[in-house]
């Protein structure tokens, strides 16, 4: 599914990613953990194609195709979904209109038929029910005036609707209470199948109680310094990062 080879990136003069290697197969869930400033969000942004980063080395393959030259929207249509750590507020842009445009862009790219307003609404309302989002949500502008929890659930709603092959969740758990966390995790687990993969970036182990990872990676100072199975997350929760950093 995803193959990252020796990825190096900088912002202005500062090198943030110093050679990331990561391989994600279909059906897998990978968790990326690490202290603040280790490069987690940069990795997510670089995968999604955010401007402002200078890729100095390395390659990123999605199903065998190098995606680094693709624009953010081309990547999205290829199936890369980034759940933003800070979803952007877009006043005035109606949520339904926005989501339907996005869904149809992606469907068009996949050669699927575009959804008309009726079918789209039917689908989105069903998904919203699963995420315990009020329908009234659809009438509001994108993320504007949403609470932190609502924004995160809206990200998951978008993910569900876009049905990506690779979902990257950037600290989706931050700022969520336990109920919201469960709802978000259920949403993630629901889309999981043998043809897609997920990368979960998080600070805390608690999200991983709900979204059980196949692999856990520790990112520190722009490199993956340790990989393991889900027990690694528990070790980190208990011992913090220091013991790893000292050995790094």
């Amino acid at each position, binding site marked *: 599914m995803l193959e990252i080879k020796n990825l190096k990136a900088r912002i202005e003069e500062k090198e943030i990613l110093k050679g990331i290697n990561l391989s994600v197969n279909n059906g897998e869930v990978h968790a990326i953990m690490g202290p603040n400033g280790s490069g987690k969000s940069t990795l997510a942004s670089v995968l999604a194609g955010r*401007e402002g980063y200078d890729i100095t080395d390395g390659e990123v393959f999605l199903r065998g195709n190098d995606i680094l030259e693709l624009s953010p929207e081309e990547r*999205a249509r290829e199936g890369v979904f980034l759940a*933003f750590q800070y979803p952007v507020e877009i*006043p*005035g*842009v109606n949520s339904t209109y926005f989501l339907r*445009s996005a869904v149809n862009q992606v469907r068009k790219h996949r050669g699927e038929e575009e959804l008309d307003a009726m079918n789209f609404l039917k689908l989105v309302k069903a998904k919203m029910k699963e995420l315990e989002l009020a329908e009234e949500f659809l009438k509001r*502008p994108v993320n504007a005036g949403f609470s932190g929890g609502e924004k995160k659930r809206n990200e998951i709603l978008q993910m569900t609707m*876009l049905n990506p092959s690779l979902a990257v969740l950037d600290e989706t758990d931050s700022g969520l209470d336990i109920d919201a966390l469960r709802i978000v995790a259920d949403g993630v687990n629901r889309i999981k199948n043998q043809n897609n993969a997920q990368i979960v970036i998080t600070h805390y182990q608690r999200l991983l109680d709900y979204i059980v990872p196949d692999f856990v990676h520790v990112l520190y100072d722009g490199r993956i310094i340790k990989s393991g199975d889900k027990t690694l997350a528990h070790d980190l929760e208990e011992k913090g990062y220091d013991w790893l950093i000292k050995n790094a």
Partner: protein
Amino acid sequence: MSSTTVIELANDITNAFAEITRIGPSMLPLRQAGLDRFKRSGFPTTNEEDWRFTSLKPFTEIPFEIMTDSGEQLLDQAILDEIAFSQHDTDNLVFIDGHFSDQLSQISDQPEGVTVSNLASAFDIIDNKIGLLSGKDENPLIALNDAFFTDGAWIHIPANHSLSKPVHLVFLSTAKKDGQASHSRNLIIAESNAKGTIIESHISLGHAAASTNVVTESQLEDGSNLEHIKLQDQSPQSIHLASLHSNLGKEARYAFHSFALGAQLSRNNLRMNLAKPGIDCMLNGLYMTRGSQLADHHMIVNHAAPHCDSHEYFNGILYDQSRGVFHGRILVQPEAQKTDAKQTNKNLILSEEATVNTKPQLEIYADDVKCTHGATIGELDKDAIFYLRARGLDTKAAQQMLMHGFTGEIVDRIQHNAIREELNELVWSRLENEHNLN
């Protein structure tokens, strides 16, 4: 045929004035006082604080031909069919160069007691009401209008009555010749608990540098509720000068929406007096300018009583060398405790050469108030564009969506569904067709 009087301002003004006084002799004292005031003040200059960013040169440099008669009475009904809102079920009052067109106007059966007519037909009944609200304003353009107004709308909704359908005031400027100057005057009285929707359209038929100077006075008594939508879509050669003076009674609700899309130079003076408690007043506007257009909204919201809310929302999109000017002043008097006032002005500059001047001001003499204002000037939000692209939209679609959202913020505040939809489409087609989205 049209008969116009060419005057050199100040020198020959009396000739035009003699012509105009034939219209409604009972208006003479008001006209004379207006003329005297204007003679003393002349046109405002950019040395005056209220006109600092807006020069009236484009107006003062063209001839000044008072339209003492309608420029054209035999207009085809088809012209009306092409203008915005014509497909809606509305009552229409049509004015051509400031003169009422009986032929093109259409008034259905409004409820008993409701008056929807032209002002000149009612001069004898209402003469003492004209100028009541605008009289104290020192703006020379009001003096000019006092002296030279020809006609306009007279809408009176008695207590506990509602307009059965929206009233559409259509102001057509024939604009055949540079310097044609129309002066219209509107009077709107909504008595207690009266309701209604009023649309005001200003359209040019020709492409000459003609001017429109319109003064509207609206009195909203206790518990009345008025929605007033103004669309100024004149030709890019024209001059549009407007003043709205409103006095609001207890728990009155007034929503005024201004769409300034046309004219070389447009200026909207909005003066709202929140005289009694519990008022909700909204001024909501969008300006979209290109070429060398200038759109200016200049408002003063006077909170003179406690527990009133006022909201001003103005968004502007500027292309080419155009200019947007916003002056918003919220004045909170000492007795206006528990005021909740909000003022925002957002500007999208989409060209290297466009200019924005914004002055969102608060003047507060009461302590238990909540007042905020905000102003932004900038390009489209880059984070938002990335967010949309990360969801699969291409750059152009993302930009369009954001611009649509930016205009939608304003359009969506229109309460009347059909009118909102039509304006939404109108604004959007302008953005798509007439402006280059880069």
